[in-house]
C-alpha cells in the first residue's frame, strides 16, 4: 500500500500550520473535526461498512499518517489496513441517548496520534430506521467541504452496492499531489505574535485549550431582518454569501471590541480555496485560515465599522489563494470566524441530519471562535460560539449569548448608532451596580459638630503637634474660634469662601477649622504654588480673604489674614454651618492645566471623614501625620479623621528642595496611619527602615501595584495593613476601598475593591448604558459626590448628571476605565484619555512593572508612551513683555498676555538682588582669591568668544593679569569666534589654551539623547575640564562671563523665594549645593570624562567659581560700545545668531523635533527681561530657518545615527541603584511575552515626583534608545546550557548561542521549537515545545529544564500509539 508514497509527500502550507499546532499540544483534541449524521432509513450495516471501506481505499488522505523525516513532517498512507468497527447496537438500551453521549465523548475528544491515524469512524444503531454515523477526522486531513464530499461518496457507493452490481473500485481525486501544489510559493512568515491582544471579559490568557460550544439562537427569528440588511444597497456586497459574511463579521468585531476593549482586532477567517469543480470534489484540507484586521475607533457607528469590514474583505479576498497563508502573519489572530457552507444532502435518498460536534477543546491561542454554519444550503445559517474555559471563568455562557445578540440585533435593526453605546444588557441589570454597605455615619452632624463633640469628650488630649509643641483639643478649639472671629471681622465681601495659602504648620489647620466654624468654605493652596496659579484660584473662587504667613505674600486684592496667636474668647458666636453649606473648594489641574474647583458640601465631607475614621486603622484613637500638600485632597483625610475620634495630627513641615517630608514620617515612626501615594511609598520602601508603630497605610492618587505592596511589606514591616483607596476629588476624597491580600491579590494591580458606605459604583459604556461584568467601561460614581465645579455650570453639567438608566440618581463620570470582576469587585484600568497602547491594544502597565520589580534593586517604575509630546509645533501666543511663546510645556499667561515667568519674576526680582554684589567687592574678592592661588595664575577664565565673556575679560584684565584663558574647542567653534579669541588674548597679553576631549562627539550624542540639545553636554564638559585645569595650575578661581539672564534661568529660580527673603549667604549656599550635585551626578559625561576626581565636591572648595556679572551690571549697549571702541571684537557672521558655535542649529532642530518647542525660547526671554535683547530681536531669532542638510551632516559626523523624531513605543523608567540595562532587559525577557516588551529602558537614581507625591511626568528624561534586546554574548556554562545549546544550534544553524540571546532573534519559530523539543526529548530532557516561548533565552530555558523530572526508561516505553480498545481489536484481527 505504501509503495505509492514510499517517502511520504510534503504537506501543504495549511497542513503545516495544523501540524505545528498539534505538536505544540499533542494531548488535547484541538483539531478534531467531528460529525454526527443521523440517518433515517433502514440501513444495512454490512453494505454500509463495505461502502465506507471502499471509499477509504480509494483515497489517499483518508488513511493519512504523518511522520517526521529529517526534521520535516511528511504524509504517508498508513500501512495498517482500514477496517470499520462493528456497529454499536443501542436499540435495546433504555437510556440509549445517554449511552450514545458516552460513546461520543470518547470518540470525539480523544486526541489523535498522527503517526498512527488521522480518522476514526463509528456506526450506532438507535433503531431499525435510525442510525447514527460518527466521523472524527483530524483537521490536518479535512475541512467541512471534504467531510461533505466523504458523506456523499459513501452515500453514492452505498446506493451502488445496494443495486447489487459489482462496481469498479472507488477512484477519488488524490490529495497528496494537490497538497504539493498548495505549498508556499513566496517567503514564509512565521506565526509569531507581534502585537498583544486582550482576552475577552478580562480573562487571563488561556492556559489550556479546553472550551465549550454555546448555541447563539438569538438571530433565528431575525432571518427577515437579516435578509433585508443584506439586500440594502449600503450593506450589500457582490454575492449573497459575502453580504452575509460582512454582516456577521461586523457584528463579531463590534462585539469583540466591546468585550476586549482592543481597537485593533485581528480575526482569522477561512478561505475555502476550492476554485474548480474538481477541487470541490476532492477530499482533504484545502481551507486556509487567514487574518482579517480592522481598526475600530471608539466613536465608530456600526455602519462605519461595516464599511471598514467591506474594505478589509476586499484585501482578504485578493490575497486568498492556495498557499497564501504562508505569507501571512497569523500569530496575531485572537479570535476566529468560521463561515462554513457545505451541502451534505440526503443519505441514499433518505433524510439525514448533520451535526458538527465540538471536541471539547480548540486552539488555545484563540479565546473565541464564532461559527456561522449552513449545512443544508437553505440560506439560513446557524450560529454558535466556542468559548475557552478561562473566559467562562469570568462570565457565563448566558451572558455571552446576550451580549452577542445585543450587538447583532443593533447592527441589523439600527446600524447607524455608535457601537460604544449599544447596550449589552437588555434590561437594567441590578447586579451591574455595586452599592456600599449601609452607612453608619450620623449624617446630621457636620465636621464642626463632630470635632466639637470630641473636644467635649477629651478636651485635654493632644489634637495637634509639631515637634515639641502641642495643642490640646480645648486649645485648638479656642484658637480656631479666634480665627473664625477674625474672618468675620475682616472679610471684604459677602462671599463665604476663604483661601488658605500657608506652609504646613499648626496654623494651617487652625485656619481651616476657623474658616469652617465661620460658616465659610476653605480653599487650600499649597505654599509652593506658582503665583499666577494662586491668583487664578483666588479670582475663580471669589475668596473674601486669604490666610497667609508673615512675609512677602503678594497682594491678591483681598485682605490678608494671619492666624491669631492667642486664643481670645470674644464671646462672639457664629451660626454653625449647615449640611448643605459648602465646606471646601479644592482646585485640581486636570489634564489641560486650567485649574478647576471642585466644591464639596459639609454633608459630603462629614460622611467621608466618619467613614475614613472607622475604616482606616485598628487603633481607637489613631494619630495621623500632616506631611502632604494641602492642595491635594488626600491630605484632608489626615487632617480630619484623627480629630473626630480623639487622635492627633502630627505636623511635618515642608522640606527644602523637593518636599520629601514623607521620609521624616517613616523615620520618626510616631503615628498610626499614613495616607500617601504609591510613589511616596516606593520612596519610603527604598530606605528600608523598619517601622514599628505605623500599622496602616492608605494608598491613593495613583494605581497601586501588588509588587509595590509586597516590596513595602518586606522593607517596612510584614504587619502592615495596606489599603487601596480609590476616588477622584469629585467623589469627596475617596469612595472605594480594598484591603491588600498577599495571597488573593495575584494580579499585577491591586483591585480598587468595593464602594464605601452610601456610595454606588457602576461601569458604563459610551451611551451611559450599564456594562456587564467583564466588559470595560467608564467608572461612574453615585451616592456621595461633590456639588460640582465652582462657578462652572457647563462643566458641572457635562460630568455630573442624573442617571438616564435610573440606577444611581445623581452620578459623576470619572473618565477612569474599569471592569467589574466576577467576585463583585472593580478593577481599575487607567485613565480613559491617557491609555497606553501597543498596536491598538491597551497595555497593562502594572504587568510590565511587575516584571521589572523582580529585581530587588528597583525602587520605582513608571511606564510612559514614547511618542512625541502633544505640543503644537507652532506657537499662537507670545508674552507681551518678553516674547516667550506658548508652546513651552506648562506655559501660562495672564489675562493681559503676560507670561507666568514675567509675572512671577516681578514678585521676587527685588529679593533676588541679594545675590548680586558691587564692583568694589569684585576687586576685594579677587585679591582674596589671588592670595590662595599657588601657581602661575590666580584665575582661569572661560572665554567663549561671545560678547559677554569678551567684555568680562576686559574688565577682569583691568584687575589682574595672572589669568589663563581657556576655551572649549568642541570641534565646531566658528572661525569668527576663534579670530575674536585670538585677538582678545593677544590684546590682553594673557596665556590661552584650547581645552578639548576626544570624547566630545560622544558627549554631543548623549546630550542630544538625554536633553535634546547640544549645549548641556558642552556646558558640563567645559566646567569639568576647567575645574581640572584650575586645580592643576593652582588657580583659586574660575571666572565666567555667565550673564544675569542665565543666573535667573538656571539658578535663581522662583522656588528659592517662595517662603521668604533669603540673604546672600543663604542663596550662595543653595547655589553651591546645586553645583555640588551637578558635578557629582553619575551620568554619561561622568563616565566619558571619568570624573571620579570631582565627585566628592572638594574641588569646589579649592576652586571658587566666580561669575563676573554678579558684580558688574552694565546695559548691553555699554558692552557693544566698549567692544567696538577698545577691541577688535566682531560679531561672528558664520553662526547665524548670537552664539559662536556651528553645532547649535543641530541642537535646536533636534529639540524642536523631539520636544516640540525651541530650546532658546526661555534663555532669550531672560535676555529680554535683563534688557540685553529687545522683544522683537528675541522673536526674530526664534523664528529661524535651519539648514537640515547641514544638520544631518553634522549628526553623521558626531555619530548620531538615529531618526531625529522620537520613536514610538513604551518607555520603562526604572529608579534604583546599582542597576544595569542588561539586568532590566533580562527581567523583562523572562517575565513578559515578547510583544509586550517596552521599546526603551531609562535608568534613574530617583523617580521625579510632583509636590503632590505623584510621578512628575514632565521631568522624566528623554530616552536613550536601545537598538536591540541582546546585550553581550555570555557563553553557556552549565551542563544543561551546553546540552541545549548544542541541540538548538543544530536546528537553527547558529554558530554560537549566548545565554542571554532571545530565541526569536535566533530564528526559533514554532517549527524549530518543535524540532528542538523532539531532540531534547530524545536526549532525555522532558522539554515541551511550548517551553521555548515561555523561557525565551538559553539561560532561562536551561533553568527551567533543570527543574524538570528527567525522562526515565519507563517514559521511553510509553506507548507511541494512541490505541483504544477498538483499534486493538482491529489490529488483533488483522494479525490473525
Amino acid at each position, binding site marked *: 500500500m505504501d509503495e505509492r508514497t514510499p517517502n511520504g509527500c510534503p504537506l501543504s502550507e495549511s497542513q503545516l500550520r495544523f501540524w505545528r499546532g498539534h505538536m505544540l499540544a499533542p494531548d488535547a483534541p484541538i483539531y478534531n473535526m467531528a460529525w454526527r449524521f443521523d440517518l433515517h432509513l433502514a440501513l444495512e450495516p454490512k453494505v454500509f461498512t463495505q461502502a465506507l471501506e471502499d471509499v477509504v481505499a480509494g483515497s489517499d488522505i483518508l488513511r493519512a499518517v504523518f511522520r517526521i523525516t529529517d526534521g520535516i513532517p511528511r504524509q504517508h498512507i498508513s500501512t495498517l489496513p482500514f477496517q470499520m468497527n462493528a456497529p454499536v447496537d443501542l436499540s435495546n438500551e433504555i437510556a440509549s441517548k445517554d449511552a450514545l453521549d458516552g460513546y461520543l465523548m470518547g470518540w470525539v475528544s480523544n486526541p489523535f496520534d498522527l503517526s498512527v491515524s488521522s480518522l476514526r469512524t463509528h456506526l450506532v444503531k438507535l433503531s431499525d430506521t435510525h442510525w447514527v454515523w460518527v466521523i472524527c477526522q483530524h483537521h490536518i486531513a479535512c475541512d467541512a467541504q471534504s467531510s461533505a464530499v466523504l458523506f456523499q461518496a459513501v452515500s453514492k457507493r452505498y446506493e451502488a452496492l445496494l443495486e447489487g452490481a459489482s462496481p469498479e473500485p472507488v477512484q477519488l481525486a488524490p490529495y497528496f499531489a494537490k497538497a504539493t501544489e498548495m505549498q508556499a510559493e513566496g517567503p514564509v512568515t512565521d506565526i509569531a505574535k507581534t502585537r498583544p491582544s486582550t482576552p475577552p471579559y478580562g480573562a487571563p490568557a488561556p492556559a489550556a485549550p479546553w472550551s465549550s460550544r454555546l448555541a447563539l439562537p438569538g438571530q433565528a427569528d431575525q432571518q427577515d431582518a437579516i435578509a433585508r440588511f443584506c439586500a440594502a444597497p449600503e450593506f*450589500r*456586497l*457582490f*454575492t*449573497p*454569501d*459575502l453580504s452575509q*459574511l460582512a454582516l456577521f463579521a461586523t457584528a463579531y468585531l463590534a462585539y469583540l471590541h466591546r468585550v476586549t476593549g482592543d481597537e485593533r482586532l485581528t480575526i482569522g477567517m477561512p*478561505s*475555502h*480555496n*476550492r*476554485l*474548480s*469543480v*474538481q477541487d470541490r470534489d476532492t477530499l482533504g484540507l484545502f481551507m486556509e485560515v487567514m487574518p482579517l484586521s480592522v481598526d475600530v475607533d471608539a466613536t465608530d457607528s456600526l455602519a462605519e465599522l461595516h464599511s471598514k469590514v467591506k*474594505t478589509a474583505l*476586499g*484585501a482578504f*479576498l*485578493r490575497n*486568498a*489563494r492556495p498557499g497564501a497563508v504562508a505569507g501571512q502573519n497569523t500569530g496575531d489572530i485572537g479570535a476566529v470566524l468560521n463561515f462554513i457552507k457545505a451541502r451534505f444532502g440526503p443519505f441514499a435518498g433518505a433524510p439525514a441530519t448533520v451535526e458538527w460536534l465540538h471536541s471539547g477543546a480548540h486552539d488555545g491561542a484563540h479565546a473565541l471562535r464564532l461559527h456561522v454554519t449552513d449545512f443544508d444550503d437553505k440560506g439560513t445559517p446557524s450560529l454558535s460560539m466556542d468559548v475557552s474555559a478561562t473566559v467562562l471563568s469570568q462570565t457565563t455562557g448566558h451572558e455571552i449569548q446576550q451580549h452577542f445578540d445585543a450587538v447583532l440585533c443593533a447592527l441589523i435593526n439600527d446600524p447607524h448608532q455608535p457601537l460604544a453605546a449599544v447596550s449589552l444588557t437588555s434590561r437594567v441589570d441590578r447586579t451591574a451596580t455595586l452599592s456600599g454597605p449601609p452607612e453608619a455615619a450620623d449624617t446630621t452632624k457636620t465636621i464642626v459638630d463632630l470635632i466639637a463633640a470630641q473636644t467635649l469628650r477629651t478636651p485635654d488630649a493632644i489634637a495637634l503637634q509639631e515637634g515639641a509643641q502641642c495643642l490640646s483639643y480645648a486649645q485648638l478649639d479656642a484658637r480656631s474660634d479666634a480665627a473664625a472671629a477674625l474672618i468675620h471681622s475682616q472679610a471684604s465681601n459677602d462671599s463665604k469662601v476663604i483661601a488658605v495659602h500657608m506652609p504646613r504648620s499648626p496654623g494651617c489647620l487652625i485656619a481651616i477649622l476657623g474658616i469652617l466654624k465661620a460658616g465659610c468654605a476653605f480653599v487650600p493652596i499649597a505654599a509652593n504654588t506658582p503665583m499666577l496659579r494662586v491668583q487664578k484660584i483666588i479670582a475663580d473662587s471669589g475668596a473674601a480673604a486669604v490666610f497667609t504667613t508673615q512675609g512677602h505674600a503678594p497682594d491678591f486684592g483681598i485682605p490678608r489674614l494671619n492666624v491669631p496667636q492667642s486664643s481670645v474668647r470674644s464671646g462672639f458666636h457664629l451660626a454653625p454651618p449647615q449640611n448643605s453649606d459648602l465646606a471646601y473648594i479644592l482646585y485640581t489641574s486636570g489634564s489641560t492645566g486650567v485649574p478647576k474647583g471642585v466644591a464639596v458640601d459639609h454633608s459630603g465631607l462629614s460622611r467621608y471623614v466618619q467613614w475614613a475614621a472607622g475604616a482606616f486603622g485598628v487603633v481607637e484613637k489613631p494619630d495621623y501625620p500632616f506631611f502632604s500638600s494641602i492642595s491635594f485632597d488626600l491630605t484632608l483625610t489626615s487632617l480630619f479623621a484623627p480629630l473626630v475620634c480623639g487622635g492627633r495630627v502630627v505636623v511635618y513641615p515642608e522640606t527644602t528642595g523637593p518636599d520629601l517630608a514623607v521620609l521624616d514620617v517613616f523615620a520618626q515612626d510616631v503615628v498610626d496611619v499614613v495616607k500617601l501615594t504609591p510613589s511616596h511609598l516606593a520612596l519610603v520602601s527604598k530606605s528600608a527602615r523598619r517601622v514599628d508603630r505605623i500599622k496602616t497605610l492608605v494608598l491613593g492618587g495613583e494605581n497601586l501595584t501588588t509588587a509595590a505592596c509586597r516590596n513595602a511589606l518586606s522593607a517596612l514591616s510584614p504587619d502592615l495593613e495596606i489599603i487601596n483607596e480609590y476616588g477622584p476629588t469629585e467623589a469627596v476624597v475617596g469612595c472605594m476601598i480594598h484591603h491588600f491580600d498577599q495571597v488573593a491579590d495575584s494580579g499585577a494591580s491591586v483591585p480598587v475593591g468595593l464602594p464605601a458606605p452610601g456610595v454606588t459604583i457602576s461601569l458604563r459604556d459610551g451611551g451611559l448604558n450599564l456594562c456587564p461584568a467583564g466588559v470595560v467601561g467608564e467608572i461612574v460614581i453615585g451616592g456621595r459626590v461633590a456639588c460640582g465645579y465652582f462657578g462652572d455650570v457647563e462643566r458641572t453639567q457635562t460630568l455630573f448628571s442624573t442617571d438616564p438608566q435610573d440606577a444611581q440618581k445623581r452620578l459623576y463620570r470619572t473618565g477612569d476605565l474599569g471592569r467589574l470582576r466576577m467576585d463583585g469587585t472593580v478593577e481599575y484600568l487607567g485613565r480613559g484619555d491617557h491609555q497606553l497602547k501597543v498596536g491598538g491594544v491597551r497595555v497593562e502597565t502594572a504587568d510590565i512593572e511587575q516584571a521589572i520589580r523582580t529585581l530587588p534593586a528597583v525602587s520605582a517604575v513608571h511606564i510612559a508612551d514614547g511618542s512625541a509630546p502633544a505640543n503644537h509645533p507652532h506657537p499662537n501666543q507670545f508674552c507681551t513683555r518678553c516674547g516667550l511663546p506658548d508652546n513651552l510645556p506648562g506655559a501660562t499667561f495672564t489675562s493681559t498676555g503676560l507670561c507666568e515667568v514675567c509675572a512671577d519674576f516681578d514678585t521676587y526680582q527685588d529679593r533676588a538682588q541679594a545675590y548680586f554684589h558691587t564692583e568694589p567687592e569684585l576687586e576685594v574678592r579677587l585679591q582674596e582669591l589671588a592670595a590662595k592661588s599657588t601657581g602661575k595664575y590666580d584665575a582661569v577664565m572661560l572665554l567663549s568668544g561671545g560678547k559677554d565673556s569678551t567684555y568680562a575679560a576686559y574688565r577682569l584684565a583691568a584687575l589682574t593679569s595672572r589669568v589663563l584663558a581657556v576655551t572649549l574647542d568642541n570641534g565646531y567653534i566658528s572661525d569668527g569666534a576663534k579670530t575674536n579669541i585670538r585677538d582678545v588674548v593677544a590684546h590682553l597679553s594673557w596665556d590661552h589654551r584650547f581645552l578639548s576631549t576626544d570624547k566630545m562627539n560622544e558627549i554631543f550624542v548623549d546630550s542630544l539623547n538625554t536633553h535634546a540639545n547640544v549645549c548641556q553636554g558642552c556646558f558640563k564638559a567645559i566646567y569639568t575640564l576647567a575645574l581640572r585645569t584650575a586645580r592643576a595650575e593652582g588657580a583659586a578661581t574660575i571666572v565666567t562671563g555667565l550673564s544675569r539672564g542665565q543666573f535667573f534661568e538656571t539658578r535663581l529660580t522662583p522656588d528659592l523665594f517662595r517662603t521668604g527673603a533669603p540673604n546672600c549667604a543663604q542663596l550662595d549656599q543653595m547655589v553651591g549645593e546645586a553645583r555640588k550635585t551637578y558635578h557629582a551626578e553619575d551620568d554619561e559625561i561622568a563616565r566619558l570624562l571619568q570624573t571620579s576626581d570631582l565627585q566628592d565636591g572638594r574641588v569646589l572648595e579649592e576652586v571658587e567659581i566666580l561669575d563676573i556679572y554678579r558684580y558688574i551690571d552694565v546695559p548691553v549697549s555699554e558692552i557693544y560700545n566698549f567692544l567696538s571702541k577698545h577691541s577688535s571684537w566682531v560679531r561672528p557672521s558664520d553662526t547665524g545668531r548670537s552664539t559662536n558655535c556651528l553645532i547649535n542649529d543641530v541642537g535646536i532642530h533636534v529639540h524642536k523635533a523631539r520636544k516640540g518647542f525651541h530650546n532658546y525660547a526661555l534663555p532669550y526671554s531672560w535676555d529680554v527681561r535683563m534688557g540685553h535683547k529687545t522683544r522683537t530681536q528675541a522673536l526674530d531669532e526664534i523664528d529661524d530657518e535651519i539648514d537640515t542638510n547641514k544638520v544631518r551632516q553634522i549628526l553623521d559626523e558626531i555619530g548620531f545615527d538615529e531618526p531625529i523624531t522620537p520613536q514610538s513605543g513604551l518607555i520603562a523608567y526604572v529608579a534604583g541603584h546599582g542597576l544595569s540595562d542588561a539586568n532590566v532587559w533580562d527581567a523583562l525577557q523572562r517575565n513578559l511575552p515578547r510583544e509586550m516588551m517596552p521599546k526603551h529602558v531609562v535608568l534613574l537614581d530617583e523617580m521625579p515626583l510632583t509636590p503632590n507625591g505623584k510621578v512628575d511626568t514632565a521631568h522624566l528624561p528623554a530616552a536613550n534608545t536601545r537598538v536591540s534586546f541582546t546585550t553581550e554574548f555570555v557563553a553557556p556554562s552549565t551542563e544543561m546550557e551546553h546540552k541545549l545549546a548544542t541541540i538548538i544550534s543544530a536546528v537553527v544553524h547558529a554558530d554560537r548561542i549566548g545565554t542571554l540571546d532571545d530565541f526569536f532573534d535566533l530564528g526559533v519559530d514554532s517549527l524549530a521549537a518543535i524540532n528542538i523539543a523532539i531532540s531534547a526529548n530524545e536526549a532525555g530532557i522532558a522539554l515541551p515545545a511550548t517551553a521555548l516561548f515561555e523561557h525565551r533565552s538559553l539561560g532561562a530555558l536551561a533553568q527551567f529544564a533543570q527543574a524538570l523530572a528527567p525522562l526515565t526508561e519507563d517514559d521511553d516505553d510509553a506507548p507511541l500509539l494512541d490505541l483504544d480498545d477498538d483499534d486493538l481489536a482491529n489490529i488483533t484481527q488483522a494479525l490473525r
Partner: protein
Amino acid sequence: MAPLKHYIQDSLLGGKTVEDSENLLLTGVLDSLAVMSLVAFIEQTYDIAVPFEDVIIENFMAIDAMGHYIRTRQQSGG
C-alpha cells in the same frame, strides 16, 4: 469577450455552459472566491485595473455585464 466566457465555463464551472445574461451571482453559481479569481483573470487578460470598489453586483452579475464593465474601463484608460 470570448476568453472571459471560456474561463468561466471551463476553469471555474468545469465545462458547464452559461448564457450571457444569466445571473451568476445571486444564484450562487459563482461564489466570492470565484469572482476574485475572475477579477485577477480580467486584469491580466484585458490589461485593466479593477479596484475593489468596482466589484459590485451591477458589474459582475452576468457575462454581458462584465463585458460592459471591461469595455468602459478600457475606454477610460483603466
